[in-house]
């Protein structure tokens, strides 16, 4: 296992009953890199994210992040290590405002004790203010400044996805897992997303991307991993993947979209 890599996933497998969702997948990602995971539906991409973030435990294999073993850790332990993620079906705190959603992400930066919050000490107020400012800054970064005090559930879909990214960034991660961030976005929003992810990379955050949208994948990725039926069928730079025969075959059903993006 390469020690320079931020995250190393080694021969990880996951079976649910008789179904093998992930089969001996191996890959790694280094600091500041953007890596995409693509593959037909049902290829196990979200399961892979669930494995890395601790939602599901691997049947076999090893995962390491910054030298720490990830297997067996709970999602909140992994979240505290510096891995953040978004969800395919946006899991926002719908009844809370945009600002509050992002503030939740900052919870670890405030260490005021219970007594301080009960008695509203100066320390409490200062830390709350800092959280508010930090959250505000991230909201500006993703472009939701005008929505600051809106209820999250009222936002249009595209903006909800941006909010989820802002919230994930609040945990100051070293690695960000984005699960289909471009799904349901129109062309303008897709371009916006591409710019945002590049800005995220500039902040020294590595990005692991699960995506169907080839335009986004091709525009951003340093490297692409292709899964089919839970197995890795190709890995390499975008140009290599485009030309890879096995990949084209796996996508035969989606040939039109793939061909259009060539």
């Amino acid at each position, binding site marked *: 296992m390469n020690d320079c890599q931020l995250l190393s996933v080694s021969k990880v497998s996951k079976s649910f009953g008789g179904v093998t969702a992930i089969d001996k997948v191996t890959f790694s990602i280094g600091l500041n890199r953007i890596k995409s995971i693509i593959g037909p539906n049902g290829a196990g991409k979200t399961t892979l994210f669930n494995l890395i*973030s601790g*939602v599901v435990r691997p049947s076999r294999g090893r995962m390491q992040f910054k030298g720490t073993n990830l297997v067996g850790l*709970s*999602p*909140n332990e*992994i*979240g*505290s290590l510096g891995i*953040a*993620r978004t*969800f395919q079906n946006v*899991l*926002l*705190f*719908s*009844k*809370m*405002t945009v*600002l*509050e*959603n992002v*503030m*939740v*992400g900052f*919870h*670890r930066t*405030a260490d*005021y004790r*219970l007594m301080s*919050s*009960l*008695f*509203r000490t100066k320390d*409490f107020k200062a830390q*709350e*203010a800092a*959280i*508010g*400012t930090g*959250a*505000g800054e991230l909201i500006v970064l993703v472009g939701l400044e005008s929505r*600051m*005090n809106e209820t999250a559930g009222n936002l249009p879909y595209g903006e909800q996805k941006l909010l989820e990214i802002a*919230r*994930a960034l*609040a*945990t100051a991660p070293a690695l960000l897992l984005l699960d289909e961030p471009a799904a349901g976005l129109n062309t303008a929003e897709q371009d916006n997303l591409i710019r945002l992810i590049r800005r995220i990379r500039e902040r020294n955050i590595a990005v692991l991307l699960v995506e169907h949208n080839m335009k986004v994948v091709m525009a951003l990725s340093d490297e692409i991993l292709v899964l089919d039926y839970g197995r890795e069928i190709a890995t390499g730079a975008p140009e290599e993947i485009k030309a890879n025969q096995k990949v084209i075959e796996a996508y035969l059903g989606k040939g039109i979209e793939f061909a259009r993006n060539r």
Partner: protein
Amino acid sequence: MQIQHRLDNRRNNQYPVFWAFTAAVMLWPLLYPSRYHLNMMIFVGISLIVVTGLNLLFGYAGQISLAHATFFGIGAYSSAVSCTKLAWNPWIGMAVGILVAAFLALIVGLPSLKLTGYYLAMATLGFGVIVEILFIQLVPLTGGPDGIGGIPSLSIFGFRFNSDFRFYYLVWVIAALFCLIVMNLVNSKVGRNMRALHESELAAKVLGIDTFRYKLKIFIFSAVYAAIGGSLFAHYISHITPESFGIMHSISFVAMTIIGGMGKIWGPFLGACIITILPEALMAFEAFHVIIYGGIIVLILMFFEEGMVGLINVILGKVSIRGKKWYLQ
């Protein structure tokens, strides 16, 4: 600076209402000083303490406890036993009650809260019935079905709370204080995390929030509130019997929580009022009062999803009365 301002605005709405309400409560005995009214409002206040904790558990941890009358009883019996059999200071008795309740809540909560679903409800059900039986059977300790009598009144530095008037203020100052504590808790990082946990436990988890520990802490916190309420109860009525701490009373507390609705200030208060005052008010109907009481519970929840808070909202014109009809939920 701009962001800070907007944040404060949202939070500050509740506090003026709270203080106004507290002032009204403090003035109440001057308007209705009769023993009957004081007595009733003392019971409302004691219930309010319990329901405030239960509301936190339900509203933020999304869990139901069917053992809050049990924790209530633990507080009551701890106070009773320490004062009558051990001749300890009543406040020490209350402290013992708090510790025992917290410990038992930890034991019950630890295995139940690890799992998603209503397992805590079922575990507290079993726990509640068992302890109820213990209250009756452990005669040397609890006095059995006859209970414990002769519980002295509380006093601070010699000032004795031995009249309805004085006890009213003791209870309501404590209730207001406890309500304030909960409000401050909710409007802080802890409160945000709890609300997050309630909305989407998975999302909260991946943000690094240890949801299990939060739920456990909330459960223990609510059990402690119930125990304190129980101690106050014991000192007020001075003779306690196991009857007051059974499953039906736990169910009453839960009903108060849900019927009151989840509003932070109004919910527990309205719920406590309805369930405490209604049976009294219906006494005129004699034997039928139970039927009417049950009927009112049913009707409130049929028409107002948010319980009494929903009813108030409708009256205030905030929400239309048309809800969602269910089908294929």
